């Protein structure tokens, strides 16, 4: 079957996600980029699961989904928090502490 395409897609998603994390200043966008990576992961897992004919991949993917959801919840909460305090969600403003 066409496993490589899946993997390739996964890789691409992964790269986009990484790029987003590094390039984006907007907290929400960074969050989204991370979600992209996680989806890339899911893609991989499912593809492999199919090829390997064992359910571990599926299970793993389910967990990833669940936990990703939790993460996003926490993440958005935090973003709200900073927005409340700073009236901005630009990450560049989060550099009080350095050195």
């Amino acid at each position: 079957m066409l496993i490589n395409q899946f993997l390739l897609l996964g890789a691409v998603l992964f790269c986009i996600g990484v790029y987003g994390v590094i390039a984006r200043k907007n907290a929400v966008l960074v969050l989204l980029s991370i979600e992209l990576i996680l989806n890339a992961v899911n893609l991989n897992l499912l593809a492999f699961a199919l090829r390997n004919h064992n359910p571990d991949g599926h299970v793993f993917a389910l967990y990833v989904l669940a936990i990703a959801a939790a993460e996003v919840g926490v993440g958005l909460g935090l973003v709200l928090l900073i927005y409340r305090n700073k009236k901005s969600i630009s990450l560049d403003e989060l550099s009080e502490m350095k050195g």
Partner: protein
Amino acid sequence: MSAAQLGLAAETGWFLEHAYLIPIVPAVAFALIIFFGKRLPMKGSEIGLASMAASLVLAAGTAYQWIDRVDSFAGEGDHEGALGGFARAFRFAEEGHANYVEPVIRKVVWWQSGGVEIGLGQHIDGLAVMLLVLVTFISLLVQIFSLEYLRGDRRYTHFFAALTLFSAGMLAMVLAENMVQLILGWEIMGLCSFMLIGHWWEEEANSRAALKAFFTVRVGDIGLLVGTGVIFFGASAYATKLGNGSSGFSIDTINQWALSGTGSRSVLLWGSVALFIACIGKSGQFPLHTWLPDAMAGPTPVSSLLHSSTMVVAGVFLVARLYPLFHTGLEINVAGQHFNLIAVIGGITILIAAALAFVQNDIKKVLAYSTVSQLGYMMMGLGVGAWTPAVFHIFTHAFFKCCLFLCAGSVSHSGSHHSFDMKKDMGGLLRKMPITAACWIISTFALCGVPFFSGFFSKDEIIDNAHHNGYNVFFIIGLVGAFMTTAYMTRATYLTFFGKARGAAAGEHHDEITVVHADPHGAAAPVLAMASHGNVVVADASHGGSEAPDEAAAYTPDDAHGHDPHGHDAHDAHGHDAHDAHAGPHESPALITVPLVILAFLAIVSGYLNAAFLHIEKFTEWVAAAGDGIHFPELDHAPFKWANTIPSILLVLAGFLVSLALCKAVFGERKNPLQGLTQRVAPLRWGHTFLVNKYYLDVLYEKVIVHGVAYPISKGIYWINQNVIDRAVNETGIETRRLGGWIYRNIDQRVVDGAVNASGAAARGSGGALQGTQSGKVNQYGALLFGAAAIGALVLVIVNF
């Protein structure tokens, strides 16, 4: 090895067996004086005296029994005992040649370490017995003398304590069974001389003299330590062979080993040389003699006891004690040998010291240099193989030199108001102080070696033997020395007791300076300053102190305070002295004169213990160890012939006349071309200055060597310490800091922080990068995170592809 082991029916006795008590008594006395001295009516001096007397008794007992022992060995049936021995001493009968007398060696284990066992004990033979008697006797007299001389001194107790401890040290050294014990006594004497010379340490000059004395002797002690070490191992090998439990430190063993021929040449040579260096230091031989004249900074009794008759002969004693070692090591008396270290050093010392004695104005320093030169005689005697005369010279010299010093003390005490300057404050005292003068003159005769005085019997023997053993150079030196001795002693005698009374001796300027001469040393101080600075300039300056009335105006009581803030204590302490002072020059009280008389008497008779021309050789018999080649080398001493003595007698006479003439000319009342000659004629002046400056040896030692070490070199070392080694350590930190682009500043708080923060700074240097990474920007953190991961992954993937 003791007689018992040999199974000899050797005569011994309680005193012989317990001779070790002799030093212990004064040692204990020392402690007692220290702890309780101040509370006693006589401030502790009584303890010192008592202990000395006790030791004297013990020593006498020892001598008595030793003589018994000698007789028992002498192999003649009748045992008439020591008294008989004395009787025989004056019976004109030649003795059968006595065979070797076993010394009484007793010891207990003191400490053992690494298989080495050091005993603590006694090695009693003739030499030891002689010195025991001598030291205890003289110490006793000197202490009696001091009772009066130092009365009211601020550290009276201290003085007697030190004096007693000194005697203990000397006695301990004399009967030492082994080298370690000998070193012990040796160093204790050094310590005491330090304490006693520096007795009046308020004056920096005195403390410097004390320091100088101790330090110079200490330099010699390098030799003592090294030498002991060098001979130790060879000797201990022999000791195990002897198997009598003695170690390589044991003197008896060392001697036998040296004679046994088992020891290697070089070890013997170097050992003896090293030890002789110690003797040079202690006995004020050239070139380390310079401390001895300075040591006159101490109170006169100290000079007379330590620096004339006892301590300074320690070096000679050591050579005599280990004579077999030196004899083999330096090949004395080997056929065709005309020079050896000991003789050469001794010879040089005789001459240079005698020469120096001419230019001294301080009576004590004349005597000091004469001591040095007499010590030179002893050394030379030992060097030319004249053991018995040399040792005999120790014996006789002790009496007359001690007497001379005490005379000088008596003069300054009652005659010249504590000045020792012959030119300024003495002269014509013959009539004022007849007893002192008489004693002085007798002793001078003895010193000069005038026939029938003790010196004659010892010194001429030395000279004679030098000739006899083929050391002709030293024979000449000896004769010249005799000449010079007579000459400078005549000069001194003339200046002191004859001619016109000068300065204090003339009873001048009393009232202005009661405090000064109320105080036993106030006026002595400046002279002592000269003593230790030892160059003309200071000397002259110090003369001013006690010179003419007008200059004496400088000597107001306040000034005296300058010298001695406690002048008043002293003054109160012996007002009688101040009172006597008003009576002008006068004979000293009995406490002083009695010792003088006794000593003067002995200065005559002591010689008759070995008056060869009377066929009395008791000293040889009792003291000298018979050379059996096992315990003592065979020496043959020159038989006494009047003929041999003629040259020296003549020279003595010549010396006397020449010197007398010169003195009359130079110091006499009548104008004379010779007066101030040394000022007028350049060469003479140079010579004079040269002598006055003591051949500039002191300059060499103090200015060049000591200051060289003390200042530039050590400063340099210290600088290196701070700036190189210490730096190197900090540098390790600094180097790392250089990475951080920091620069080392100087050794202070910063350096430490630097050294600690060094690596931190290194980070800073290796780029603000690190700091940069910590920008606080999430994205950059992310970039860093993934970047690192990616790089790592890339590398490893490529590697593992």
